[in-house]
């Protein structure tokens, strides 16, 4: 079984075929053998307003219904709106059992105190947080509050029980920095392999430093990049099974 732990849905869009974009993605999933994609909808100007992320989450819940059995969901919130964020997390998780976690983007570093109520809510509900992340030396002004592995590790020392996925090791930043920064995070912290960067050795280095138990297969919509690097990376069959789906199923308490 192959679970893409970091993906996005777009619909329903205006027009004759509101699910056309998502259907293309499902066709790509079929082509490379992805059984389930865990999606969030980020189709709103950011930093997101409550109205913005609430609309995203309504659309995400619609997508779960439209593609039942192929999509699971993350509720996306801006932690700066504490009351609305907590309410929308609860609303989404109650609305659909296939909504299994929370997505945070770049409005705040995950180590910012404003994010604490969201982290505590996720601990209370026992659901994972997928954190958009990257560590780069360039264009830092474009995402001034993007979290990196260091921020995630810092949070995990304060909340060792928090289930956090550091997003897209191959998302374009310095992946060696990210992997090393996550080495001493709590055991409940992991990272996904997604992103367009397909540098040889990325996944093997993550296994070496972080261990295979904390890694999650993902594409973040770069389907051939994500599936292709997982196909090429050298690892034991046991580790491949864990990263493909075993670790994620364990994280969300589900069976294959």
């Amino acid at each position, binding site marked *: 079984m192959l679970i893409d732990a970091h993906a996005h849905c777009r619909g329903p869009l205006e027009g004759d075929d509101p699910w056309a*974009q998502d259907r*293309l*993605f499902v*066709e*790509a999933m079929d*082509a*490379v053998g992805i059984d389930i994609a865990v999606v969030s909808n980020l189709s709103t100007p950011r930093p997101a307003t409550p109205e913005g992320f609430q609309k995203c989450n309504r659309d995400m819940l619609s997508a779960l219904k439209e593609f039942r059995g192929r999509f699971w969901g993350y509720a996306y919130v801006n932690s700066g709106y504490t009351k609305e964020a907590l309410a929308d997390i609860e609303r989404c998780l109650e609305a659909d059992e296939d909504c299994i976690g929370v997505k945070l983007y770049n409005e705040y570093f995950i180590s910012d105190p404003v994010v604490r109520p969201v982290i505590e809510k996720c601990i209370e509900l026992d659901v994972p947080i997928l954190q958009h992340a*990257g560590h*780069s*030396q*360039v*264009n830092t002004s474009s995402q001034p509050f993007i979290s990196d592995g260091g921020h995630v590790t810092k949070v995990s020392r304060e909340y060792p029980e928090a289930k956090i996925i550091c997003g897209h090791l191959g*998302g*374009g*930043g*310095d*992946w*060696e920095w990210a992997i090393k920064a996550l080495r001493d995070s709590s055991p409940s912290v992991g990272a996904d392999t997604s992103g*367009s*960067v*397909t*540098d*040889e*050795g*990325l996944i093997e280095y993550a296994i070496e430093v972080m261990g295979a138990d904390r890694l999650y297969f993902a594409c973040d*919509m770069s*389907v*051939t*990049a994500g*599936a*292709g*690097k*997982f*196909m*090429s*990376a050298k690892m034991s069959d046991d580790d491949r099974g864990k990263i493909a789906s075993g670790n994620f199923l364990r994280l969300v308490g589900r069976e294959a």
Partner: protein
Amino acid sequence: MMIFDSNAYLGHWFARQIRHNTAPELVALMDENGIDKACVGSLAAIMYRNSQRGNEELLREIADHRDRLVPFGVINPAYADWEHDLDWCLNEMGAKGIRMYPQYHGYKVLDPLAHELCQACGERGLAVTLLHRQVDYRQSHWMVDAPDLALDDIAQLCSEHPDVNFIILEGAGFAGSRFIKEAETLPGNSYIEISRSSVFMGKEMKTLIDTLGAERVLFGTGIPMKYPGPALLKMQHVETSKQNKKKIFGENLAKLLGV
């Protein structure tokens, strides 16, 4: 079906460790992935002040693997004595082409130096390679600033040297560039490698095939800097005929280089 990789390397890269970067290791990686031949350039030569030393290392490295590895020299036209190095690449190394790196060598794609190098390659029958990027800009080393080249600048350079064959590696975003928008009027002397092309949602690879013709599309992986899997998956799933896949996998490059 012959698989001929237009985008491969040997040697050390300054910013991170590269595995499988000796000739025996690269050939073993090619064997694992069914790749018959590969065009290789020296990674070290890109950042050496004197790139020629990297070319010399490459020649020694591939000595026992000439049947599998086709050398490309790295030429910096801003460095002393480059014409000598170019002749050495042609006559001593047996290069089929060169790779030029304006983004690392301190000149612009449309500077006179670039034109001089292209003209010299044309006179010698050597293909000219440009890389839209060598690595993703977001993972730049803090000491080196090498943004992606502008595809429209590359298209302009190609158009001004219609007698030279250009190989464009590691490119993406062609649909919005002159390569596609002005495909009918630009000379057909550019060949596009597919390791960063989309085949599913964006379908850029199909656009390249439909607009430029399959004859101008080349298979490439970026090994050993990149995993080979993504490029192989793209070839598996691109919407085109078996005949076109055969051309892209190897026939086009073999014909282009006379190999």
